[in-house]
């Protein structure tokens, strides 16, 4: 039965997250971007929303449509600050993969770490995602006595230096698998952050896996294995949700400005060239949001939603970039200066639209 109505529970959660994003995240977004570091206070406050804990705490009953709910919440957080939304979506994707596909032992060992009151960071490292890692560099997992050897790298892992664990997605004997790797395991090298175009607060850094040997028990699902595609699909849902929130923030910020900004004796919003841009922004923010939620809803009833998740992410990446671009343009010179958020959103949008497979919903 086709329905576009959020449940009451989802509405309430969204309202709370939206309020939090506006009052707590948005005001601090510029400062953490300039600092190139996420403040402990920001991380703690977003952690207190309990989004990761709900996934990690096996004792708690899961909400109805957990992926839809997470997508809605990430969208609201990203409306305030996309960087913080990504910061949370790292451990969220990690914990969700363990909770859904981990062996009983893996759940027992790992999930309690993510169910507590203090922030705990982790990320998904999709070894073959991103051509920029360098052509010809081997990215694979090999079977060795008693376990697996991981060789490869993942570029630009959010908050890499603070992650306690990585979920490495790699191919082993032509089959895709996921491995839980401790950040302090031998051979895991976390490079210094060199800074990035956008999402600077995440201090993204390359993580290299140099012959990292993990035991058999590190393979997600252990003997049963895991459906890696689901993890990838969830990451795309998370990205499209975050891009949707960012796009909506740009639109909401730009619209009143165009009504207030007078040029040649008239508000620029009264000119079709500007008004039509706003109409197109509005159309796309809605379409990208619902495409993402459609993929999320599918992932709540099926193991994978590869087509819909990919298309949602692709559309959100294209439109998110376009909307952030128009946001800068509508503000003219003010769009280019760092006093206002437009240029930051522009950098964020491009950064989000080239990231894949690091986070989850």
């Amino acid at each position, binding site marked *: 039965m086709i*329905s576009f109505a959020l449940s009451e529970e989802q509405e309430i959660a969204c309202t709370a997250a939206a309020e939090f994003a506006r009052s707590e995240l948005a005001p601090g977004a510029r400062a953490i971007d300039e600092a190139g570091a996420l403040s402990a206070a920001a991380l703690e406050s977003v952690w207190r929303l309990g989004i990761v804990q709900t996934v990690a705490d096996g004792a708690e009953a899961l909400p109805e*449509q957990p992926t839809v709910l997470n997508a809605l919440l990430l969208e609201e957080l990203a409306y305030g600050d996309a960087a913080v939304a990504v910061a949370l979506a790292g451990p969220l994707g990690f914990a969700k993969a363990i909770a859904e596909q981990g062996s009983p032992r893996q759940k027992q060992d790992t999930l309690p770490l993510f169910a507590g009151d203090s922030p705990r960071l982790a990320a998904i490292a999709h070894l073959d995602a991103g051509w920029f890692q360098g052509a010809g560099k081997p990215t694979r997992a090999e079977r060795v006595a008693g376990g697996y050897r991981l060789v490869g790298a993942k570029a630009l892992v959010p908050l890499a230096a603070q992650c306690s664990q990585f979920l490495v997605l790699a191919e082993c004997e032509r089959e895709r698998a996921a491995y839980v790797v401790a950040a302090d395991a031998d051979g895991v090298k976390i490079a210094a952050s060199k800074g990035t175009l956008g999402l600077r607060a995440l201090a993204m850094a390359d993580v290299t896996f140099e012959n990292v040997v993990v035991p058999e028990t590190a393979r997600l699902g252990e003997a049963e294995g895991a459906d890696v595609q689901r993890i990838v699909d969830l990451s795309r849902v998370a990205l499209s949700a975050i891009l949707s929130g960012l796009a909506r923030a740009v639109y909401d910020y730009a619209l009143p400005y165009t009504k207030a900004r007078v040029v040649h004796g008239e508000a620029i919003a009264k000119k079709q060239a500007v*008004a039509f841009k*706003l*109409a197109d922004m509005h*159309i796309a923010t809605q379409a990208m949001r619902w495409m993402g939620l*459609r993929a999320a809803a599918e992932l709540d009833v099926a193991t994978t939603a*590869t*087509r819909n998740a990919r298309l949602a992410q692709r*559309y959100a990446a294209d439109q998110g970039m376009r909307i952030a671009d128009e946001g800068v343009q509508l503000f003219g010179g003010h769009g280019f200066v760092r006093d206002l958020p437009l240029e930051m959103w522009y950098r964020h949008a491009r950064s989000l639209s080239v990231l894949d497979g690091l986070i989850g919903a």
Partner: protein
Amino acid sequence: MISFAFTRKDREILDEARAQAKLAAKYSRDFEADEDAMPPHEYPEAAGRPDTRELLESHVDELSGRKIIHALLYLEDWYGGVPLREARYSLGNTVLKIAGDPAQYARWADKTIAIGLTEPIGGSDPASTRTSATYDPANDEWVIEGEKIFITYAESCDAVLVLARMVHPGRPRGLSTFMVEKGTPGFSVGKQIRKMGIRFEDTAGLSFVNCRIPAFNHIDGDLKKTLQSFSESRPVVAAYALGVSRAAMDFTWVRLAEIGVTPDYNATPTGLCAAADRMLALEAEWDATWITVLRAKWIEQNEGPGKIESSAAKAMGGALARKATQTCIEVLGACGLSAEHLAEKWFRDARIFDIYEGTGEIQRLIIAREILRYSPKELN
């Protein structure tokens, strides 16, 4: 709870509609050479197959929403290129339903009613309407004078609902609608218009010279409500666009598969060939349009027509149809151009969707006025 899964009955009706569209596809070129020909009420292949629109009406309770599935039936019609069974339902019918009184509705409910809106001077701006309806108190009649162009179903309809400027001693000069039946003296239909595409669609101009109609034929509804019918039909036109675009994209994927190019939803940008990359961009745009059409119809079903959502659907559909058919031809190369295949026809047909029932620009104007809270005077 949000859900994008069809009910079993939705699926059953839409599957039947797709099967019928595939049967109709072989007729879709029949009107290329003879534009004056009218599609039959139904093709022989329709025999023994259920009428999908009747199925819809008889299982309303088992659907995701009558209006949602109704719109998607048009997607299927256009997927085939020409309806296997004519819908016999036009925009004039919608206006009658919204604005007519019960006696008027009863009189014309089973007729095909075209809408007479566009005039030589323009279609996008109803305020510029020049056709007049002058009240004649001696005979309790209205006298219609004027000309309409680009009227869909002009020849095959039973009556036209004409938008005209009222001239009445006791009433302000405003726009209103008048039902003019075929055969009314003074009402004539012009020749079929020669078009780039949609040649199976019956399109002609109308002329009214001292055309007298009884007072009963004045559909004296609120004009705002009348124009609201466009909010209902706009997502339907977007559904047309989805149908033609889908047909073009499906055909292109089939040809691409012959040379080993298939959709890969996991490939990175460097892992896709240019053709596949462009096709995936179209797939994303198709889905974005599809969900927007569904949302517009869902809102209409549950809360009444949403002005912004309906225009958004139409704007997206119009843009998609242009881009999809243009891209597919380019990807297909020679077999896209050749009249041996349908791609070139889809390219010509699809171009109308961003024009009729409000151009893409008009849709953006409507949306912009709503989101900016500007009156038509403030933003035009």
